[in-house]
């Protein structure tokens, strides 16, 4: 499979087939048509079938009378006890067997599970294979379509001494029944790798960035028996965390930003053409907050979660507007039996066991997990997401002991919603545009903003009669993140700082300098 000439032929077919993509609805249509056609043929057999059923029932009655109840036991329904909620598990969808496979993770009781679970759209099954990878968290898992195996790599295990952790660099494959440890001669030099199947090269691609300052990026390929480091000309280098996902024709890497890029925190979307990485330029970028992603085969769109639900059609990310929302870290898989994407649990939480399904436009709760404990509020309550006008009413009603309460009288037209948390002596409101390309945070808070970079400019400015601090992360970028911090003359019941006045913080992302000051000067 690694023979370059063989790959050329495969790539030539790929190019030819790119003109005739598989219609996303073909699978469901074809299966339904087949079922409907067969139903028509079944009618002539009905009488025969009824006779058979009658015979079986008669036999069952006689057997019951003769043998008594002890001899006939009802067959229990398929047990479907879901796994305990777990963070940092590995998940992949086993296409050959139509099952989501879940391995490892952390529960509140165990730091590194070695459990293997599958979910087929109807029921969870815990497997007990005789050989299994050692327990771990953070393993990379992906389905190797060419070889019809789930591949697991790396992760972190507790040290046998009981102190510290061990970085795992082992490779395992799952065939639906058992795990097998592979013994490649070359091993990726990491325990924290993203993996995804590349339909173009028919190889499993692994990608990681060395966890050092400006660490080197590495692209690895798994051919079923060996890892090989590839040498692309371009590589994503933004972060050590990202998501590899196939859009059905090519492999995408959604790189999560841990540093502002051009003064803004957004993700980068890259595509792999079998030889090289290319950074795509979506019309709207996915905001950068820990996205999980999967290909929704019903719609042919890539689905991503980051607190919102997003889809990618190859040219732009689009925020969807579901009525309920899974957590940003939910484990995702497209389950053909349901013809839906399912989201289970949370890779960032060992307390979330909710199971939801995405039908292309909305999420529905299939099965709620155990109740989640509520976080201590410190006197503030999360008042939810609402319109900016409702947010103003809510804040002015809730904040009663801090004065003055300043809110913008003029917001950019793109701002459509506000998420509010507030108490009598303070508040925080986050205004956002529909597609999240613009966000504004304002509050009575003692802010501790992160330091800027080399190009960051921080200066003192006169604002509302006091001296304020104004910072622009990257003045060369017109829409750079920027913030303003000042002590507004006023009073509060429990002063947050020794300085007099009420501490205010205003920050914005996606606004020009002029728009930012227009906003700041509209505070009333």
């Amino acid at each position, binding site marked *: 499979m690694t023979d370059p000439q063989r790959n050329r032929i495969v790539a030539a077919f790929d190019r*030819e087939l790119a003109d005739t993509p598989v219609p996303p609805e073909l699978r469901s249509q074809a299966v339904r048509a087949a079922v409907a*056609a067969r139903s028509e043929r079944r009618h002539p057999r009905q009488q025969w079938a009824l006779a058979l059923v009658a015979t079986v029932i008669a036999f069952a009655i006689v057997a019951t009378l003769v043998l008594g109840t002890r001899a006939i036991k009802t067959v229990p329904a*398929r047990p479907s006890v879901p796994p305990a909620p777990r963070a940092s598990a590995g998940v992949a969808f086993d296409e050959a067997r139509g099952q989501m496979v879940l391995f490892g993770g952390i529960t509140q009781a165990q730091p590194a599970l070695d459990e293997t679970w599958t979910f087929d759209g109807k029921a969870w099954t815990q497997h007990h294979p005789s050989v299994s990878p050692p327990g771990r968290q953070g393993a990379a898992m992906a389905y190797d379509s060419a070889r019809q195996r789930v591949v697991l790599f790396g992760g972190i295990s507790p040290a046998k001494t009981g102190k510290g952790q061990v970085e795992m660099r082992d490779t395992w494959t799952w065939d639906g029944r058992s795990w097998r440890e592979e013994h490649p001669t070359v091993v990726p030099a990491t325990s924290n790798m993203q993996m995804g199947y590349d339909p173009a090269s028919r190889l499993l691609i692994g990608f990681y960035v060395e966890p050092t300052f400006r660490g080197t990026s590495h692209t690895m390929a798994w051919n079923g028996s060996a890892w090989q480091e590839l040498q692309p000309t371009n590589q994503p280098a933004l972060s050590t965390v990202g998501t590899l996902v196939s859009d059905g024709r090519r492999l995408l890497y959604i790189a999560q930003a841990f540093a502002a890029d051009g003064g803004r925190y957004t993700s980068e979307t890259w595509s792999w053409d079998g030889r090289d990485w290319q950074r795509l330029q979506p019309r709207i970028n996915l905001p950068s907050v820990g996205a999980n992603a999967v290909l929704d085969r019903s719609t042919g769109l890539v689905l991503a979660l980051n607190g919102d639900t997003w889809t990618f059609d190859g040219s732009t990310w689009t925020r969807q507007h579901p009525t309920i929302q899974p957590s940003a870290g939910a484990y995702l898989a497209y389950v053909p039996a349901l013809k839906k994407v399912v989201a289970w649990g949370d890779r960032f939480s060992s307390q979330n066991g909710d199971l939801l399904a995405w039908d292309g436009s909305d999420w529905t709760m299939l099965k709620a997990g155990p109740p989640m404990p509520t976080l201590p509020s410190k006197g503030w309550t999360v008042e939810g997401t609402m319109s900016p006008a409702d947010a103003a009413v809510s804040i002015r009603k809730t904040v009663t002991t801090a004065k003055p309460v300043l809110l913008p009288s003029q917001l950019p037209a793109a701002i459509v919603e506000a998420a509010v948390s507030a108490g009598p002596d303070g508040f925080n409101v986050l205004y956002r545009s529909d597609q999240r390309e613009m966000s504004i945070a304002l509050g009575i808070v003692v802010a501790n903003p992160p330091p800027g970079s080399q190009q960051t400019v921080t200066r003192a400015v006169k604002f509302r009669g006091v001296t304020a601090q104004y910072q622009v992360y990257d003045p060369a970028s017109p829409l750079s993140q920027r913030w303003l911090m000042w002590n507004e003359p006023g009073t509060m019941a429990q002063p947050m700082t020794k300085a007099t006045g009420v501490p205010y913080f205003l920050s914005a992302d996606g606004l020009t300098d002029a728009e930012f000051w227009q906003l700041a000067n509209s505070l009333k």
Partner: protein
Amino acid sequence: VVNSVPLGSGEGLVSAAINGDETAFDSLVGPLIEPGFKLAAVMLRDSEEARDAVQEACVTAWRKLAQLRDETHIRSWFLTIVANQCRTRRRAKWWSVVRLPAVHSAEESSRHDWESQLDLGRQLRTLPDRQRIALFLFFYEDLPLAEVAKILNVSPQAAKSLVHRALGKLRVNMEVSQ
């Protein structure tokens, strides 16, 4: 009865599907729709025709599921049905006469000649159908020659010969192993 059949194993899925379980049938055949469609697209060179061929193949597969002797061979079994459907459609619509010359114009060919990869694609399109399909099944679908032979309804030796002759025409020097 259907719901109590343990899904997950191939055998259980086949039994459940034979008993009328749509979900089991979808689990079995669903993952093969994509390779089936690609095979049909390569054979028919027309998206709509490929789509119809796969739907017909799906109906046939559902009806003939009881004839599937070994569920581990379901991939080549289904692709054989798809290939048969394509042959039937091609015979009915004289594809080889109309479609082949229209695939690439001379202008397009000269424009792309400079790039060998695209040149390979052009050569692939001009191969005789049986050689083209043999290459597709052997290299793209990664099927062993024995299964390629079944789908093409020829002996394994003939399948190997088809692959060799195709590679010869493409001037690609490769070893073909069983």
